[in-house]
């Protein structure tokens, strides 16, 4: 079992966020859930995270805006963007803002484990 990480999962789709969190928690990580950009910011204001999985398309504050906020609050957090379909402009902006990578939905658990192994 790899080192336990503090992970923030941000997705406006509750089931997606929870199903991802379930696997991460099963693997022994410390997982926090947020269903909007604002909620994610609140979590980051409270404590630091090693890794954040950020849904790109969300109402009000989208993933890229959230990434900018994370960069301000917790620049050490490694951020991965998660998207259902390609919004090239947003993905390019995210890359410019220092996102570590992009995961396409549906995210395979094996792929996520691979990423966490490299980040641990």
């Amino acid at each position, binding site marked *: 079992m790899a080192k336990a990480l503090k992970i923030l999962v941000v*997705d406006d*789709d509750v*089931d*997606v966020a*929870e*199903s*991802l969190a*379930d*696997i991460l928690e*099963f693997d022994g990580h410390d997982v926090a859930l947020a269903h909007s950009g604002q909620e994610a910011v609140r979590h980051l204001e409270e404590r630091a995270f090693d890794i954040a999985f950020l849904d790109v*398309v969300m109402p009000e504050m989208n993933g890229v805006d959230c990434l900018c906020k994370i960069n301000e609050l917790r620049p050490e957090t490694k951020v991965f963007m998660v998207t*259902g*379909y*390609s919004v090239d402009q947003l993905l390019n902006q995210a890359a410019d803002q220092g996102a570590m990578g992009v995961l*396409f*939905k*549906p*995210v*395979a*658990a094996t792929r996520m484990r691979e990423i966490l192994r490299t980040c641990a």
Partner: protein
Amino acid sequence: MLVAAHRGLVKTTTGVALLVAVATAVTIPGVYFFAAYKSEQRQINLEAEQTARTLGKFVYTHPDHWRWQSHRLDELLSYGAAYLRDSHRRIVSDDGDLIAAFGTSPGYPSLSGIFRVSNGADVVGFVEISYSLWPLIRQTLFVSAIGVLLSTAVYLTLRSLPLRALNRVLADFETSRTELQTANASITSLNDELEQRVIARTAELKAAQEELLRTERLSALGQVTATVAHELRNPLGAIRNSVFLVGEKTQHRGLGLERMLARTERNISRCDRIVNELLDYTRKKTLTARPTPLDAWLADVLAEQTVPEGIALCEELGTPGLELAFDADRLRRAVINVFDNACQAMAEWHEREPGRDALSLTVQTRSSGGRAELRFIDTGPGMTPELLEKAFEPLFSTKGFGVGLGMPTIKQIMEQHGGGMDVSSEPGRGTTVVLWLPVENQQEEAA
């Protein structure tokens, strides 16, 4: 028709002119002869009357012997002869005896005038003056000649005047007709040209309209699929993760869930492929073309594929060293699509009608005529021409599953590369799909 009308008019004009000419030729001498005849007759009658009256006076003064005064009678008869040339004058008694005569008999034809001689109470004889008609006939003939000349002139004038006018009209008409024919030919030519242009434009319009409909349909499809993809990928992700976790948690517990979980995972992947296929066709991706050795690349792609049981894969790569610039990711998708289509068709055919042997898929590369070709030759069920035509229509599928965007996507990928896709098929014999890319001259030569 015009020539017939012209001939008719000429005939009529000639007839009228001839009639007028004949009338002129007959009328002039006729009128002349009649007038002269009347005038001479009057003259003779008058002369006869005068002579008779003078003789009457002489008879009155010489009642008994006037008959024998021959020299007086001759003198009386000769009087006035100067006026009437070649006249023959006679004095005849009342009982028919010739008393005196002057001049020679005029012969036939002649004109004569008789007047009775009276002594105041009784008729004692007659004075007869005859005159030859030949001088009058000669004059009449002369006048006739003039009349004929005149009538000929009238005939010619009458005949030529309307003909000249007609000829002028005909010449004008001919000019107009030529101009009309030229204009007509020009109009016909323009008409033909216009018709051709209308046909061409109509075809262009129809093609544009079809393209527009297709684009609109795909645009609407694109919007729908983008939404559907997003909306489906989230629940799919949630299902996939949950199933994964169920699998992890129940592993090695002897619950016998493995097959069910594997089936669930398989079908999640299938749904994922459908979403990808839809997105692939509707999303316009920019190509990232890099020079790649075609044969080596294709061999790698083919090596990754699983060939169904019972199908032989033959690789005949014939362009070693040929390097082409293409988007490896997109072309890979096209190749896999063609490969999967061929394998699936052959496998299903085999399942439906077993006992066939020599099911094979031959993959060739070749370069000629400015194109690099990737040929996929299968010995599967093939397609009828109707089916082949429909294969390129979006949303058409012969498979039990799939959305029917495979062939249109392959075509789209090849066209994005400036190349294309050709398909030939024969039912019961197999299908050949050719994917081609344009080759620069120097590359072809180098190859």
